[in-house]
């Protein structure tokens, strides 16, 4: 990419809007044993670039921006973790039980994350985006309103709250299965 490449401007804009929050999300998904093996900010930069290139190649993709970012980042973190310690995520360790890069909190087990991720996939895209934007990334409310195409912060707040309730309902269903 050169300085005149429009993709550079796009990456910069995404970095301005989401960079900090995606980096924090990545830190949260990086186990202690992997903390010295890769730089979360580099994963985020690679992710932003990848998403912009995907969009350039296939502009009509029907996936919301934030969902694309989260999915790509998720895959990239997993790939880095695999490279950092081969086998760690497949067998023979605590992390092997968790198919996703774990959010490290001793009180939260892998089963909870499995139900959470499954429930998340069952939400419609708008609700999923609302949960990720606010519940995971903690984006500022004006940014959330913009992403959700809401006319006001109050409307965005209500949308996120409803999405969280729907997510909880899906998680509850998943627990009973």
């Amino acid at each position, binding site marked *: 990419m050169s300085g005149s490449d429009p993709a550079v401007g796009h990456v910069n804009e995404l970095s*301005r809007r989401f960079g900090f929050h995606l980096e*924090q999300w990545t830190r949260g998904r990086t186990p202690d044993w992997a903390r010295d093996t890769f730089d979360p900010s580099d994963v985020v930069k690679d992710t932003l670039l990848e998403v912009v290139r995907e969009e350039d190649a296939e502009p009509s993709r029907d996936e919301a921006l934030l969902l694309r970012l989260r999915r790509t980042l998720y895959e990239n973190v997993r790939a880095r973790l695999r490279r950092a310690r081969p086998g760690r995520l497949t067998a023979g360790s605590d992390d092997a039980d968790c198919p996703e890069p774990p*959010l490290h*909190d001793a009180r939260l087990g892998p089963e*909870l994350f499995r139900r959470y991720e499954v429930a998340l996939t069952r939400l419609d895209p708008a609700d999923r985006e609302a949960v990720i934007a606010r519940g995971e990334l903690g984006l500022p409310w004006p940014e959330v309103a913009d992403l959700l195409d809401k006319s006001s912060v109050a409307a965005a707040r209500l949308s996120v709250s409803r999405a969280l309730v729907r997510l909880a309902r899906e998680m509850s269903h998943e627990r009973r299965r």
Partner: protein
Amino acid sequence: MNDDDDLTDPLLSLAQKIAEGSAVNPESEKEAAPDDTSRATLESLLEIAAISAAHRDTEHRFGTALTGAPNEPRYWGHLIILETIGSGEFGDVYRAHDTRLQVDVALKLSSVAAARSGEASRVLDEARLLAKVRHDNVVRVYGADQKQGRVGLWMDLVQGQTLEELTKSQGFSEREAINVGIELCRALAAVHRVGVLHGDIKAHNVIRQDGGHYVLVDFGAGRPLEATPEAGRDVIGTPVYLAPEVLEGQPRSTASDIYSLGVLLFHLVTNDYPVYAASRLAFIEAHRTGTPKRLRDLRPNLSDGFVALVEKAVSTNPAERFGSAGALQGALVKLVSPPPTAPMAPIDVAPLPTRRVPLGWTAWALIGAGVGGAAWAATSTWRANGNAPPLVATVAATTPPIASAGDSGVRSYDIEAAFYRIRSGDEEQLTSTSRLRVEDELRLSIQTTVPAYVYVVNEDEKGNAFLLYPLPNGSLARPVPANQPVRLPAEDNWRVDSVGDKEHFLVFASIDPLTAFDEIFKKLPAPERGQRKPPAVKLPSETIDTFRGVGGLAPTQPRRDIGARFRDLFTTPLEGRETTQGMWVRQLTIANPPD
């Protein structure tokens, strides 16, 4: 079950708390559930609350703080934080050590809060603007990044005092202010040339380095010239330095940067401002109806020319200001052109000087073909009076790159040049502490990344000048070849054969032949092999006006009463490697202090 059935108050209330990141008490929340179905959903909401809290907690657990363990270095990326040297709205400025480049740098680092809000992206914007500008008078950026939850840029650690500190501690004479203005005009011209507005020129943002060089810093309020901010959204900067049209909501422009520079000149000599008010509206009102403070009232002894120049720069009407930084620089240069001490004659009819020529130059011819190819023989001696004082080389003055006559001024190239003294077979680069003696030999080493036309001129304090390069019948092809060290003269050294007053050595380089200057240079006497050098002549004022007219400096009509000489135009030292455009001119001044 209908979605809305679940959106009963207890559930929605809890979801809202989660969304806001508020604390949740699981026990009391569970008690609020009206039935088992709602209770199951509510328990899942509590799990979501825990996940959401864990996400928020990563900032604390994984750390965005720079503090390390006691007695251990604090890192941001590959930079070691050494000390805090400033604080601002968006973060701090540190002295840091770049472990890769192995140099100390200034690190401007956003706060985590600024990064979270997206405001810190301004630091990256600043870095991108700075990266466009390459100029001696503008701070150089090394890099920018986003790490550890912060956005940062690192750049040259410019050590010295700000103009604000100097204004408060010692004040500035008119002459000193003019010198500052000339250097800042060069910086500003370079900034504008690459399509950037500085946006916040003020005494706090200019540092006088310990060597006396002025450096423009802090592009935090800068933006690309072509950007089109919304009406009223471009009021960024320091109110006392902001042009009236900007205060009223018009976009900033090169004219508003000129206004700020005018205010800075005003401030340097008065420690005051043309307009001062308590609020933005009061500033607007003061500009509309009030009378700006008059420079003459605050400093009655200032020259008419300086007062008129500053008042033109701070005109309320942008159209009445100088049209460019180069125009303002030209006006400043005119103010310091010394008055003629004697009538000047054109070069071709110039009378030969009757007094001692302070510095004589002789070419040393290589006669080594028959003696092993390494012997140098003197062909003449320093023509000096017996009580001539020793020479002390000091690096002084010169100019920024200016476009040459045949060049568009947009091609960049790297250039490095240094004078060397040869004494008893040993070579030593001339620096501000070097001393020269009779019988010393000198040469210039120059290297460029493009073929370049090079000229070397020696001028004494009285205006007597010699052309040291190109020499008549010189064998070195012109332009000099690129990407290899080239010694000038090609086969000779210049030999000091007299000692006199202060001497100035000017080195000119250009991508294109300086056709207009060629004619002037040809008229200058040059040392020849095996002969004593011819007598020097004075440079006429027309020569200087030719220089001004080429390359975008303020054009002037030739005036017989201008006593300026080559050297008066240039104040940038000959030192180090740099990138330039068009014509490049640097000066080495050697003083001859009496014993």
